């Protein structure tokens, strides 16, 4: 049992080969994570493709059709773009962050920060490229569906076929892919800065490091929120007409995205409040929320989007439907589809984050069991965390909903709070609660069962 006495003979090779091999291997080893990230991208790509196809059709058309087919995707495209970019960037950074320990390990044995960045990029592109391209197919179908609805409503008269050329492909797949690559470069830079010593620390897996909120996030989040609030106010100055939703919609989306970026601060505040509770379960849940504010923020963010954009857009549409027809009805399909895409994105992003985060806490649960917590108590803590997370998202999302709906309702119907808004808001909060409970409690049960058998 001795080691080599003769030197190992090597030939020069490109380190990229090893990086590619590792990237592909690790993709194969995490099909669920990759699938979830790919799904977010696919939905985003499909949404943008559909709108881009409408725009391209509009550019090729003439007269009134041209005006409508350019204006409609331009209005919807702007905020779809914002949502897709936000969703893709946050999903990518989540996927990268889940592997921080492995990254640190690579750094100890051989990889330079640059190689870690390249690895991140290769992995993201390997998932993002097929997903973005695959999104073209449902995207074009969606575009056709929208066009046929517009024709059926006699809003579009002379155009019958969708013009899906290079512009559609470039904008649809290209934007989603660009967002993914930008996300990968941001996340990869941070991954490259992970200190190698992080691989050697005993408490691996429990990620409490990192500032809850970076200055860049505070500034960006603040600016986007203020822009959204401003746009919302400007709705009041608009005349009652078909363009009313063009400021009300984006205003709510901007507020939701802005507040989503600031979500870690809300988690800290909410957790701090709970930490003073009399109930031990509440106190434990509050502490988790506070110490893991950054992670909790990336969970609150998609839920905020879900509740804010979802209930805002749907309520706006319901008000529209109840009014004498303007050009409301043919926009309805588009709005419903967008809400569907956002719900899809939020479900995937939130459950992915939550399952991963809960799984990483297996060690924590084990410690809690060892220090005398019962299974029931641990599950109660996890359930309470899910509840509080949803409540915070509901508050943030509620603000975004209000920014969309209140000015819109005042101008359109003359009432401040429309009857349609309440039930829709409650419905979406219920969806969010279902996501958080279903993604966390069963995962925690499995974790505890696993530690019990060890």
């Amino acid at each position, binding site marked *: *049992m*001795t*080691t*080599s*006495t003769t*030197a*190992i*003979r*090597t*030939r*020069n*090779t*490109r*380190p990229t*080969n*090893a*990086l590619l*091999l*590792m990237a592909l*291997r*690790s993709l*194969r*080893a995490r099909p669920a994570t990759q699938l979830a990230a790919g799904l977010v991208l696919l939905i985003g790509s499909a949404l943008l493709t559909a709108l881009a196809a409408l725009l391209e059709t509009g550019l090729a058309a003439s007269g009134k059709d041209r005006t409508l087919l350019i204006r409609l995707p331009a209005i919807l495209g702007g905020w779809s773009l914002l949502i897709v970019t936000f969703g893709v960037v946050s999903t990518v950074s989540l996927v990268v962050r889940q592997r921080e320990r*492995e990254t640190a*390990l*690579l*750094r*100890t*044995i*051989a*990889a*330079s*920060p*640059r*190689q870690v960045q390249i690895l991140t990029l290769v992995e993201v592109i390997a998932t993002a490229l097929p997903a973005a391209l695959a999104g073209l197919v449902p995207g074009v179908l969606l575009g056709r569906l929208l066009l046929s609805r517009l024709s059926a409503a006699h809003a579009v008269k002379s155009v019958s076929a969708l013009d899906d050329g290079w512009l559609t492909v470039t904008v649809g797949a290209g934007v989603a892919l660009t967002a993914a690559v930008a996300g990968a470069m941001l996340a990869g830079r941070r991954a490259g800065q992970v*200190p*190698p*010593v992080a*691989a*050697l620390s005993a408490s691996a897996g429990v990620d409490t490091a990192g500032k809850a909120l970076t200055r860049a996030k505070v500034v960006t989040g603040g600016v986007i929120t203020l822009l959204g609030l401003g746009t919302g106010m400007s709705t009041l100055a608009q005349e009652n007409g078909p363009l009313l939703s063009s400021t009300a919609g984006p205003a709510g989306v901007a507020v939701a995205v802005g507040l989503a970026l600031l979500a870690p601060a809300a988690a800290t505040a909410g957790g701090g409040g709970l930490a003073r509770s009399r109930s031990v379960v509440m106190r434990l849940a509050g502490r988790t929320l506070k110490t893991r504010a950054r992670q909790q923020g990336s969970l609150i963010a998609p839920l905020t989007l879900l509740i804010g954009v979802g209930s805002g857009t749907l309520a706006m549409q319901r008000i529209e439907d109840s009014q004498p027809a303007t050009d409301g009805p043919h926009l309805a399909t588009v709005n419903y589809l967008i809400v569907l895409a956002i719900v899809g994105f939020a479900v995937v992003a939130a459950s992915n984050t939550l399952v991963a985060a809960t799984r990483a806490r297996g060690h924590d649960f084990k410690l809690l069991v060892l220090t005398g917590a019962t299974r029931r108590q641990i599950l109660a803590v996890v359930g309470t965390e899910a509840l509080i997370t949803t409540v915070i998202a509901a508050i943030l999302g509620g603000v975004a909903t209000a920014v969309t709906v209140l000015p819109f309702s005042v101008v359109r119907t003359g009432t401040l709070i429309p009857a349609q808004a309440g039930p829709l808001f409650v419905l979406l909060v219920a969806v969010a609660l279902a996501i958080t409970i279903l993604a966390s409690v069963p995962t925690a049960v499995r974790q505890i069962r696993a530690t019990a058998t060890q």
Partner: protein
Amino acid sequence: MSARTVPVRQAAVELLSVSKIHGRDAGAIRALDDVSLTFDSGTFTAVMGPSGSGKSTLLHCAAGLDKPTSGTVRIDGEDLSRYDEAGLTRLRRDRIGFVFQTFNLLQTLTVRQNVTLPLELAGRRPRRSDVDALLARLGIEERADHLPGELSGGQQQRVAFARAVLAEPAVIFADEPTGALDTNAARDVLHLLRSAVKENGRTIVMVTHDPNAASYADSVIFLADGRIVDTLARPSAEAVAAHMTRLGEGVR
């Protein structure tokens, strides 16, 4: 990368007045306090000490994983403070091998891919036959195409050792290499480390808190409160245990 020369009995690792302070102000902890040490080429040294004595910090600083607050660390004659992060990475690839308590193999790569990874990241692909020969000498050639998860702890540690020696580093740092192994597997790994030093002239620095593991080394260095408090040549497990007990009783 400069050309590498290996004269006989050169210092593989030198620490000159190395101090490391974690935290600052009132919360500051002096993890290493003016430590000067030399690990000669071709020696097997164990570093021991109670928890919090600074053994891990010593290993991290000596291996360029962590920067000392003051003092100089030289590996193979190269002053680590002159390197940036990318330079340190290259230095670790070429001159340093690591063996960890938790093996730290990439779970998604096969045994062979894990072993060759550091060299490949450095842009060198070792000959397959050489890698197979190394795996055969370590008794894991039949596991070459398995994933680490399919191996026993002892086998995984051999893979980690193969990965550490493949690039023929100037020094191998082992951090509690037997900490996660049963006694039989631990003994095998310790024999392996010892024969790598005796028969192939490797240099090994091993951090451990197990007196039995330390007894396989040529000498033992005892740390307490960030300072070297004692050394022991040709240690026996009993002598090491006796030293440790005295340290635990607070002889400072």
